[in-house]
């Protein structure tokens, strides 16, 4: 009954709004911690340059933060507006981490971000530092709860289907939040945010050093950022590997698509460095392989088998057949929740309920009891995500990750060896590195979410069933609306960001005296004493 175009438009809208939101989130996650680090140095050492650094980067943080908040609002409600069936089906589980995110993390982040911006003259040094730390902590807690929610979609743990209420219900809160997928992805994602912020700060600092502006601030910021960055990028790669390991066991279909492995091969299987997957023919037109490498890479053993797409589809077909009676029983239970026979039938087949749903879209009149062998074959083919995009998106993410590792290793070596501001070749590269982590983050999102297809909740609820029953016109209207608003937002944000960076620290006076550190410091002193004077007046 749900129109395929509506489902595709809903997916597109979710991808657009989520990817857009995720342009601002990583920088918030990382920059909040970098601010905390800089302010800590200020409070401990008492050097005013670090206060100036905190305020300068804090200003950029706030420009970015506003858009993160705005676009996050959309996400909080989009499940309800566009994914109504999904929301009713798993809201009992999925809603909880979102609500707790608001209660525990986002309240804290938003309340203290106000004090962080407005409280410089009202709070003691230590209090303000505490506020900055709470913002950093809260933004990361926020990511934790969102990824717990996402972890459930990737690997639905701690829940079971209740035929009385016709929905999934929470059975174990512990299993939900300590799901391997959620925890690994949380660390991977939040550290990816640290890398993003480190590259951003290093890039902008390099821009200043190239122009010999704000040298003191730029050099120190660069040093803090490269240390922070090298540690973080190593963490991201380690956790990414762990995520492949964890995700591989939970979602073999995602893994097989990422590696374009059409046939199950004897362990240790070869690794495709590059390939041209052709989904229709279920093969790679060409590929460059390294023998034996895939098995140890994915399973961390030499002999554990890695199932190929052929095997996954065969399994899916079996499960679809087993799931059909579960869906039939459910239909009876919907009007008559105490029907014993239907309940017994449901319980015997409930593990494959989701696979029964998978064939519903192909069965005549969406009645699974009428599903033919060819319907089942089609549904089984659906159980694999799009291999070509998975294969290349994943490789792009890994490549950008390795490039950032190389960048930070060089950055740290250069700053340790001496004055990085004299390595002009490196300073010229650094600003151009700023987009790279953003690309990596977006590719990571695509790998995780497109790789989960055809499922909204892996193995339980197909994406095509999850959408709201809107008309195509509504979906185009909302998509166009968001696209327009977000385009204007992006333009305004970029403009203000670039403008603030061009202007540099101590915004009001920097243009007239943008030469060297000492004059900046003198200006800051003047400003500070003006502020202190004001405070005295206030009291």
């Amino acid at each position, binding site marked *: 009954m749900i129109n395929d175009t509506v489902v595709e438009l809903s997916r597109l809208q979710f991808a657009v709004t989520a990817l857009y939101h995720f342009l601002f989130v990583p920088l918030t996650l990382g920059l909040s911690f970098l601010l905390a680090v800089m302010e800590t140095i200020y409070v401990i050492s008492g050097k005013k340059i670090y206060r100036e650094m905190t*305020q300068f980067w804090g200003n950029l943080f*706030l*420009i970015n*933060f*506003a*858009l993160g*908040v*705005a676009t996050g*609002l*959309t996400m*909080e*409600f989009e*499940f*309800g*507006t566009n994914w*109504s*069936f999904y929301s*009713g089906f798993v*809201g*009992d*589980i999925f*809603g*909880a981490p*979102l*609500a*707790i995110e*608001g*209660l525990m993390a*986002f*309240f*804290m982040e*938003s*309340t203290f*971000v*106000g*004090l962080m911006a*407005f*409280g410089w*003259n009202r*709070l003691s040094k230590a209090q303000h530092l505490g506020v900055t730390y709470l913002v950093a902590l809260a933004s990361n807690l926020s990511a934790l709860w969102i990824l717990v929610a996402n972890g459930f979609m990737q690997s639905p743990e701690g829940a079971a289907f*209740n035929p*009385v*209420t*016709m*929905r999934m*219900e*929470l059975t174990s809160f512990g299993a939900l939040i300590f799901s391997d997928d959620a925890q690994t992805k949380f660390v991977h994602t939040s550290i990816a945010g640290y890398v993003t912020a480190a590259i951003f700060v290093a890039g902008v600092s390099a821009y200043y050093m190239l122009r010999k502006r704000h040298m003191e601030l730029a050099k120190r910021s660069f040093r803090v950022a490269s240390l922070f960055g090298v540690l973080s990028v190593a963490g991201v790669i380690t956790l990414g590997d762990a995520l492949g390991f964890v995700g591989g066991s939970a979602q073999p279909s995602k893994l097989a698509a990422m590696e374009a492995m059409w046939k199950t091969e004897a362990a240790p299987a070869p690794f495709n460095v590059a390939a041209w997957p052709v989904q229709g023919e279920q093969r790679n037109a060409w590929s460059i392989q390294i023998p034996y490498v895939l098995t140890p890479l994915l399973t961390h053993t030499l002999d554990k088998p890695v199932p190929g797409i052929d095997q996954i589809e065969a399994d899916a077909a079996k499960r679809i057949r087993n799931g059909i009676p579960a869906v039939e029983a459910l*239909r009876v239970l*919907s009007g008559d*929740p105490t029907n014993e026979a239907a309940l017994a039938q449901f319980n015997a087949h409930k593990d494959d309920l989701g696979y029964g749903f998978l064939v519903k879209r192909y069965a005549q009149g969406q009645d699974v009891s009428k599903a033919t062998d060819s319907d089942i074959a089609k549904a089984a083919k659906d159980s694999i995500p799009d291999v070509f995009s998975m294969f290349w998106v994943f490789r792009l993410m890994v490549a950008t990750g390795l490039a950032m590792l190389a960048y930070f290793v060089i950055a740290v070596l250069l700053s340790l060896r001496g004055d990085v501001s004299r390595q002009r070749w490196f300073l010229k590269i650094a600003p151009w590195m700023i987009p790279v982590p953003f690309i990596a983050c977006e590719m990571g999102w695509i790998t995780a979410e497109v790789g989960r297809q055809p499922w909204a909740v892996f193995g339980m609820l197909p994406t095509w069933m999850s959408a*709201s*029953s809107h008309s195509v016109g*509504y979906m185009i209207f*909302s998509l166009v*609306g968001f696209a327009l608003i977000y385009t204007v937002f992006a333009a*305004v944000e970029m403009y*203000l960001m670039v403008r603030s960076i061009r202007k540099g620290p101590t915004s*009001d006076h920097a243009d007239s005296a943008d030469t060297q550190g000492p004059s900046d410091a003198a200006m800051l002193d003047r400003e500070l004493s003006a*502020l202190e004077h*004001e405070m005295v007046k206030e009291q």
Partner: protein
Amino acid sequence: MELYFFLKVLWWLLLGVLLMGLAIMVGMDMGVGALLRCVGRTDTERRVALNAIGPHWDGNQVWFILGGGAIFAAFPLIYATAFSGLYIVMLLLLWTMIVRPLGFEYRSKLASPRWRNVWDWALVVSGAVPMIVYGAGIGNMFRGVPFHFNWDLTSYYTGSFLSLLNPFAVMCGVLSLSLACYMGGVMLMGRSEQGAMQNRAKRAATLGGIVAVVLFTIGGVWVSQMQGYRLDHAPAPGLAQTPLLQSVVLADGAWFDNFRAHPLLWLVPALGYAGMALGLVAIRAGRTTLAWWLGALAWIGVIGTAGVSLFPFLMPSSSEPSQSLTVWNSISSQTTLTWMTGWTVVFMPIVLAYTSWAFHVMRGKVRADHVESNPHAY
């Protein structure tokens, strides 16, 4: 089962707390936004207004976000059905809401008067429209919304966008906006220095309060003449259930059933009247803090009246009344409610504590010269 019944009622109350918290805290900021151009005539006055709520709007807005999350967690079927059914209205709400963070953060970053004017208008619209939608949304619950489910609880909305903007709903929307203006006006009175701006804020707050009293009264009379919904038979409230297992009838004056059965409940609307009436007196006396708390009381009374009147209904269906959503059939499982109760008991007091601390730290008047000279000001 007894526990489940208790949890269901508790979460109905908490839903009320959430909607009240949202109305009080976000409504205040929305009121300031809606009044921005008429209370603040010069750029400096507008900056004073924005900086009065500057440190707090972000935290307050989380009430709105938490509203979405908590309804998702505790009343998933409401989250799913209401937000998809009221689609265009939700878009209107979201599109205006998402402009607000940028309005606050970006408005004063450039000195150009055109830039600032555009953002001022954006703030006015993003203050007024969400409050109207908020009230209209609640108002529509009295009239019922045309939706139904099929056997697997896929919901279908069969009305048009315009039917959601019926006269009663719009009146509720204006009531909600007027209370927001009351709160925004009171906030600006308290935070601005004596002068023309403070007088304008006082007039706006007074007007908001008077309009609210009038509309609340008209609303009560209107509802008494309206057909309400009544549960005919349904599974026991403490049982897990879907909306497919009950029957509902429409009856004249059914929205007063609960008041007739429990006359003590008349105290709830009385609370609303007391808040608004005494609030107006407090404004006259220039007691802004008191007026603020009385305004909060008014919100509690008004939203409480709607909740008590509708109970146990949350979202009645006008096209398929027997599939109406109630507290009993749209709520989460006992396990989820238990966990959510635990999180709320621990964190809600913490949230209230640091919110109060933030207001305490930033207390006092926002001075024009301070706004002009402070590089961190909006």
